[in-house]
């Protein structure tokens, strides 16, 4: 198991820095809670994601997964360490990234269609063109019939799909996804997972995918990264997923290699989940 992790790590380290879509080097994130209280959420996290690579981050709740995505998006500035996007140091918002947030982020005052189109309109596409392309994207996520609904009239899963279209229509080179299937039931998760894999196969972006579901992480990604429980969470494991593509999420779970990897990762993750839980109980 440790061997596997080491191999994966050296593989990514070998990739030249300019090849890598995302390079986080010794990133430290600290939040000021009060005047003299500083909470170190993430301690020296190092993570390289190659262009076109699909990387999943798994870790106990509150460990800093969303925080790492925020750092990559340029929404949070790390206290120390370097963030490089396609070889350039990130100093403000990450313009190459599309971000599917963990919480609801659709504009409640816009219809599904307007929500999807807005990302094109902001970069100067004429409204009619933007709307036409938004319609195509809604069809791609299976929501053609819901174009004129407002977010509060959509189910949680439908909202997530609108969010996905809203992000992908801008064709970002990097896709950040924070528990995009979080509130969905098991069947819908599979459908959404396959949808995501289809879209990603058609146009390979670098993906950083946060989930608390280890099976989902393995089924979807090229690499699975494990974080330790906070505070001062670190990246404590990095596994390459030895499954071939194209994959079907429900079939891939029958593969023996899947089970072996799941077993390996779970051994390590279990301890952290318990730790994270104990710590938050104390707080």
């Amino acid at each position, binding site marked *: 198991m440790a061997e596997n992790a080491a191999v994966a790590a050296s593989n990514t380290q070998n990739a030249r820095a300019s090849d890598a879509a995302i390079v986080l080097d010794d990133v430290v994130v600290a939040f000021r809670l009060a005047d003299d209280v500083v909470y170190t959420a993430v301690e020296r996290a190092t993570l390289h994601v190659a262009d076109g690579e699909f990387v999943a981050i798994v870790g106990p709740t509150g460990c800093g997964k969303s925080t790492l995505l925020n750092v990559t998006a340029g929404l949070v500035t790390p206290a120390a360490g370097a963030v490089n996007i396609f070889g350039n140091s990130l100093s403000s918002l990450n313009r190459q990234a599309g*971000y599917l947030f963990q919480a609801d982020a659709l*504009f409640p005052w816009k219809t599904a269609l307007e929500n999807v189109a807005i990302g094109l309109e902001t970069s100067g596409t004429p409204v009619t063109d933007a709307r036409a392309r938004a319609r195509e994207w809604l069809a791609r996520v299976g929501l053609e019939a819901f174009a004129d609904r407002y977010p509060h009239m959509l189910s949680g899963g439908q909202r997530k799909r609108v969010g996905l279209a809203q992000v992908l229509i801008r064709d970002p080179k990097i896709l950040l996804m924070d528990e995009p299937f979080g509130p969905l039931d098991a069947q819908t998760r599979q459908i959404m997972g396959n949808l995501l894999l289809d879209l990603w196969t058609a146009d390979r972006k670098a993906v950083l995918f946060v989930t608390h579901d280890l099976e989902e992480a393995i089924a979807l990604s090229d690499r699975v990264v494990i974080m330790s429980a906070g505070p001062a969470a670190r990246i404590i494991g990095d596994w390459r997923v030895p499954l071939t593509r194209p994959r079907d999420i429900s079939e891939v779970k029958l593969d023996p290699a899947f089970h072996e990897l799941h077993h390996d990762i779970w051994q390590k993750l279990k301890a952290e989940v318990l730790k994270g839980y104990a710590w938050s109980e104390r707080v």
Partner: protein
Amino acid sequence: MSRINLLLLQVLVAVVSIALWHVLTTYPIFGKLLLPPFFFSNPVDVAAQIVAWFSSGVIWKHLWVTLIESILAFVLGSIGGVLVGFWFARQPRVAAVFDPYVKMVNALPRVVLAPIFALWLGLGIWSKVALGFTLVFFIVFFNVYQGVKEVSPTVLANARMLGMSERQLMRHVYWPSALSWMFSSLHTAVGFAVVGAVVGEYLGAAAGLGYLIQQAEGVFDVAGVFAGMFVLAAFVIVIDTVVSLIEKRLLIWRPAVGDARP
């Protein structure tokens, strides 16, 4: 409850109240009138007064004046409230400096301002508009300020990630949010615009519903006072209905009360 049933019950309440009023002011109970007509008038006289106003047409002038004053107070107060609300919300330092003064002025009972406005602006409509303005302004201001401040940070971050410039953020995020807050207080704001106009007229004017009521009071014409109040109430209900219609159109994206989804 179906619409028809609801309407019937609502009418029933009015009928019962008026009947009660009529009985108590007309027929002695145990040899005594419970509501002396000198203080409470009676429905027949009041209705006669209202009919007289409308048939002679004198009421239209007063309604028109009050309507114009209310609309001006509402529109100007809203514009002022929106502008200052946006400005303060986007410039926390300005807001911090002015904060105590805003609270001070807002705590002031506006009635005490009426004579000053009459002094400054005369007895015409503008002193009433000014009074309504001071009421409407603060309601709209506080709501817009809140609306801009309380934009969900996630929605804001999303807007930024989707490439919105500062101007686009204003248009697509802050403005709709502020508007929804403002509209939630629309009924109050419109109500206060009318209150400002009527109170202003009551304290000194040459026309308007407030003036009408004040005149009647001056000669102890209780039927006239009640008639004025009824016309005023009907006036407010009509305006409120119009506001509801506008609100429904503009806030179509909001979940109706009761089916709010998280």
